[in-house]
Structure formats: C-alpha cells, structure tokens
C-alpha cells in the first residue's frame, strides 16, 4: 500500500460473509477460497443484542467439507461507537466473544500461508447467541495473485 492509500474496490476483493441479519441461532458464513490471495481481513460488526462468540474454520471445499476451527489474530473495538482497535492478539480455537455493547467490531487477520495444506477455504461461524443480536460480517482479501480492477469471485 502506498502513501496514496488502499483502494479496496480495485486493490482488494470484498465478500459479504453474512449480510446484516438478526442472528438467533448458530450461524455459518459464506465460504471463501484463499487460493489466489495472500491475506484476508474479516470484519465482524455487531448492533444491538446479545454477545456472540466468533470462530474461524478452514475447510477443503466451498461446501465446508472437513471444517476445522483455527487459531487467529484479532483486534477489537469493545466500546460502543468507538473507532480505536486494540492491539492484535491471538485467539484460541474456541473463538472470541463480541461484547454486548451495540456498535462494537472485531477484525480477524489471516495470512494464506498459515492455512493447513489442503485447506484453502475459510469461513466464520458463531454459536447460538441465546438471544437475538444484529450482526454483519465482511471479508476483504488482499495481495492477489492475478489482480485486475474487477476481481474474480472467491465464493464459487
């Protein structure tokens, strides 16, 4: 990224992992392929409602075959309506809980070379939150192998 910034639409690739939704049961996201990208940042946004624990899974196909939870690096804004993330920290395979505050956010950073051989696919999931909360998850992939201004799909 140069001094002029990161034009995400053309220099990255955006995937809506979970469209804004009232989450009331265990939920898994879209599956993405890291085959042609070196890095992905997942942004998990939460609105009003209960806390939710987010986990990262790697798998062997778009269908989510062989899904296995992974450790990951994350940064978090746990204060409602804040915009200052914590320092990056390692989460266990148990995942990380978002707080109950409205307007909090979790950023998960994953390098493709961390993934297990044969497991180039990733997805997010959250356990049953017990009571409803509003959530939305987005993935931004970067460091593309074959990169054009209009990038190709990574979900099929």
């Amino acid at each position, binding site marked *: 990224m140069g001094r002029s910034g990161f034009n995400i639409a053309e220099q*990255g690739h955006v*995937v809506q992992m979970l469209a804004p939704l009232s989450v009331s049961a265990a939920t898994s996201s879209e599956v993405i392929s890291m085959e042609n990208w070196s890095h992905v940042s997942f942004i998990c946004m939460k609105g009003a409602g209960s806390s939710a624990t987010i986990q990262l899974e790697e798998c062997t196909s778009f269908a989510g075959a062989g899904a296995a939870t992974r450790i990951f690096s994350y*940064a978090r804004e746990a204060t409602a309506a804040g*915009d200052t993330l*914590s320092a990056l920290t390692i989460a266990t395979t148990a995942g990380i809980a978002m707080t109950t505050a409205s307007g909090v956010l979790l950023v998960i950073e994953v390098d493709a070379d961390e993934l297990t051989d044969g497991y180039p696919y990733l997805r997010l999931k959250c356990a049953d939150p017990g009571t409803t909360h*509003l959530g939305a998850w987005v993935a931004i992939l970067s460091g593309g192998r074959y990169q054009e201004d209009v990038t190709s799909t990574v979900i099929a």
Partner: protein
Amino acid sequence: MSGINISEQCHYVNLFEPDAYSSAASSEVFSMENWSHATIIVHKGAGSACTFRLEECTAFAGTGHRTFLPYTYTAESTALGDTLSAAAAGTTAGVAITTGDGSVLIFEVDAAAMSDGYQYMRVFHDAATTTDWGALAFLSGGRYQKSEGATAIA
C-alpha cells in the same frame, strides 16, 4: 505484495452499525485530516432499496455539510455475489443500493479531492422503509501511522 493487514495498516470507522433503518439519517462524521484515502462499504440485508450520498463538512458536528464530489463507486447488485462492477463516477444525487439481500456498495474517496476547509466527511441515506444494513469506512495512507491508530471521529 503480502496483502493488507487492515487492523494495523488502515483505520476503521463504524458509520452505521447493523440495524433495521426506517428513516433518513446521517452517519458518524470522520476526519480525513491525517489520511489520504477512504473506502466506505455499505452492506445490505433484507429490505427496500435506498440511496446513499457523501457529504463533506467543516467540523465533527457536521457544520456546513454539503454534497461531496468527486468520488467513485462500485456495486454488487446480485444477492450474495462477490464480483463488483467497474468503478464509476458518482453524482451529487448519490447512489442507490438495490433491493437484493446481500448487495454491497463501495465508495472510494481521495482526501485531495475534498474542498479546502472541508476535511470532515459523513454518509447520508434516505431510507424510508425498513431495511437491514450497516456501513463502515476504512481510512488508509495515514500521515502518522501506528499499529493502533488514533481516533478519527473526535
């Protein structure tokens, strides 16, 4: 390129948290004073179409707000797709996000394009019927950049 670690190389601002919006509103105001570029991502769930436009202003309070040009935008109008359109120039009328559940709209703004004295920006939407969506901004090309960036909303 090994990719962009967004949590350390960019700065995010939560413009509209995920919610069911049913009346027009303006977002959090953020400052572009120390950043050269902003990407604003609007992601929509179920509900009606609505139009978003960018406004520049002279203070965090939204003082002197006026419609901002020039900017470019891209969109994914297909439900649950992930292939954006080519970048197109936006107009003062703003850009509509479609009714598709899972559609995305992305605005790209260079700080150098903002008017003198108008270094603050916000997003306005005209939602009139209930629609689930959220929006966030990523600021990049920071002047004083650290692994944990300083706030851009106060």
